[in-house]
C-alpha cells in the first residue's frame, strides 16, 4: 500500500471514530448537566439591545425568539413543570423585536394567562403583553378579543372584559361576535353560557388546529359540567320523590326522569355511584372539567388534546 493511501485510510478512520466519540461524549455531558440547559438562560434580556445587535434584521430575530418561546413553553408543559420564569421575558423580547408578530400575542397570552399546569398562571402579564400588541396594532380585533378573554376567564373581571370586547367591536373587519360578547358581559350572562360563547367564537375564528382542539376540549368540558350538574339535580329530585337514591340510571329512566343512559360528549356513559354522585368514565380524555371527577383524581402532568374536527 502506498504511504499516502495508508495516511488517507488512517485519517478517515480516526475522523469517523472522533466524530462518533464526540457525539457520545456530548450525550454523557447532557446527562450530567440536566439542570444547566441553555433554555434557562437569557444572555441578553433587553429587546432594544437585541434589536440593535440584529443589525436591522430584527424580524428574523423575532421569529427565532418566538420559536424559542414555543419550545420553552412546550418543553415545560410536556415535562409537567409548572415554572415558566423565562416565558414572559421571551415573549417581551419577541414582540419588542417585531411588534407586528400577532401570533406571539395570541398564543403568548394563552401561554401566560392560563392557570398551571396549562400555562404560567400570570394573567396580569398576559394582559400587559396584549396591551402592548394593541398599542402597536390598534386595528386588530383579535387582540381585543384575547384581552377580553383573559379578563373574563382568568380574572372574572366582567367590566374590563366588556370594555375590551366593546373596543374591539369598533375595529375594521371586527368579527360580529365581538358586539355580542360585549353585550353578554354587560348583562353578566350565565357562567357556562358565556364560556360556551367565548370558546365557540375561538373555535370558529381559529385557523390553527391546536387552538381549535383546545377550544373543542373546553367546549366538551362545559357540556360535561352542565350534564353532571343537571344529573345531580335529577338524582336529588328522585331522592326527594322516592326517599332513596337510585341504584342505577335504569331507575331514573323508569321514573321518566331520563330518556336513556346519559353519555358524555365523547360517547362514554356517565357513572352513577351508590352515593348518588355522578362521575365521568374517562376523566383523562376530558381535561378542564370541574365536575364529575373521581375522588382523589390526579390529572396527568401533560394535557392531551384530541385532534380538532
Amino acid at each position: 500500500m502506498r504511504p499516502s493511501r495508508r495516511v488517507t485510510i488512517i485519517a478517515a478512520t480516526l475522523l469517523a471514530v472522533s466524530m462518533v466519540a464526540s457525539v457520545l461524549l456530548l450525550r454523557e455531558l447532557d446527562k450530567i448537566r440536566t439542570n444547566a440547559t441553555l433554555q434557562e438562560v437569557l444572555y441578553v434580556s433587553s429587546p432594544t439591545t437585541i434589536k440593535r445587535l440584529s443589525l436591522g434584521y430584527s424580524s428574523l430575530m423575532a421569529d427565532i425568539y418566538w420559536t424559542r418561546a414555543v419550545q420553552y413553553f412546550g418543553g415545560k408543559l410536556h415535562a409537567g413543570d409548572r415554572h415558566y420564569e423565562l416565558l414572559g421575558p421571551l415573549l417581551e423580547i419577541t414582540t419588542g423585536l417585531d411588534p407586528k408578530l400577532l401570533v406571539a400575542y395570541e398564543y403568548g397570552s394563552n401561554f401566560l394567562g392560563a392557570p398551571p399546569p396549562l400555562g404560567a398562571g400570570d394573567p396580569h402579564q398576559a394582559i400587559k403583553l396584549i396591551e402592548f400588541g394593541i398599542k402597536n396594532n390598534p386595528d386588530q380585533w383579535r387582540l381585543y378579543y384575547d384581552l377580553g378573554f383573559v379578563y373574563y376567564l382568568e380574572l372574572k373581571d366582567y367590566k374590563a372584559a366588556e370594555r375590551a370586547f366593546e373596543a374591539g367591536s369598533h375595529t375594521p373587519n371586527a368579527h360580529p361576535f365581538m358586539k355580542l360578547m360585549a353585550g353578554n358581559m354587560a348583562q353578566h350572562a350565565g357562567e357556562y353560557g358565556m364560556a360556551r360563547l367565548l370558546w365557540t367564537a375561538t373555535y370558529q375564528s381559529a385557523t390553527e388546529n391546536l387552538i381549535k382542539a383546545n377550544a373543542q376540549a373546553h367546549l366538551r368540558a362545559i357540556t360535561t359540567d352542565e350534564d353532571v350538574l343537571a344529573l345531580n339535580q335529577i338524582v336529588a329530585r328522585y331522592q326527594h320523590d322516592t326517599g332513596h337514591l337510585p341504584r342505577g340510571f335504569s331507575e331514573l329512566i323508569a321514573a321518566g326522569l331520563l330518556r336513556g343512559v346519559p353519555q358524555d360528549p365523547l360517547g362514554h356513559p356517565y357513572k352513577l355511584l351508590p352515593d348518588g354522585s355522578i362521575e365521568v368514565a374517562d376523566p383523562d380524555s376530558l381535561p378542564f372539567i370541574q365536575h364529575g371527577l373521581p375522588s382523589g383524581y390526579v390529572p396527568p402532568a401533560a394535557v392531551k388534546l384530541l385532534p380538532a374536527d
Partner: protein
Amino acid sequence: MSARILHIASNTFREAVRDRVLYNLIAFAVLMSGAAILVGQISINIERLVVINLGLTAISLFGIVIAIFIGIGLVSKEIDKRTLYTVLSRPVRRWEFIAGKFFGLAGTLVVNTICMAAGVFAALLYIWPHHLQGSDTGILVALYFIVLQFLLITALALLFSSFSSPLMSAIFAFALFVIGTFAEDLRGFAEMTHGAQHWLATAAAYIVPNISALNVIAQVAHEQPIAGRLIVFNTAYALTYSVMALLGAILIFERRNLK
C-alpha cells in the same frame, strides 16, 4: 456604457464565478429547504414569516459578505498579480477599469440574488402550494432594495480598496455597513446634541450610508404596503451614494502611483 467597461465587467463576472462565489447558493438552498420543512414542526404559525424573513435576510447577508470580500480584492488582486499593468497598457482608462469592476461585481450579485429569490418563492410555494398572494409582490420590492444595498456596499468596498490594503478595506466597508444600519439612530442622536457635537453627529449621520432605509423585510413579511415614494427616493439615494463612492474611488485610483 463603453465596450471596454463591458469587457472588464464580464471578465469580473467570469472571475467571480470561477472563484466559486456562486457556491453560496448551495448553502442558501439548504437553509431555505431546512427552514421550510422544519419550522412548522418547531414553531407555531410562522412558516410563511420565517421563509420570508430568513430568505431575505440570508440574501442580504450573503450578498453583503460577497460584495465586501470580492469588492476589496477587485483592485488589489489585479495589482498583486500584475494583471492590472497588462490591462492599463491597452487603451483602457483607469476610471473605465473601476467602473467595469463595479458593474461586474454588481452583475454577479444580481444573478446571485435572482437565483436566491427563486429559492424563496419555491419555499413559499412548498409551504403553501398554489397560493402566492398579490401581497407577495412586496417581496420583489424588498429584493430590489437589497440589490440597492449591494450597489452601495460594492461601491464602498471599491472605494476603500482603491487606496487601502484588503484587510483594512474589509474592516472599513463592514464598519460602514454596521454604522449604516444605525443611520437613523445617529440622526436621532444628532438632534439631541448641541453645538459642535450636533454638527459632527449630523455630518456623520449624512456621510454614512443609510442602510436601514433599504431594509423593508419586516414590513414585507407582514404584508404591509411599501410606499411608491420610498421606492423612488431609495433608488435615487442608493444610486447617488454609489456614484459618489465610485467617483471617490476613481479620483483616488486616477492619482495612485502604480509603479
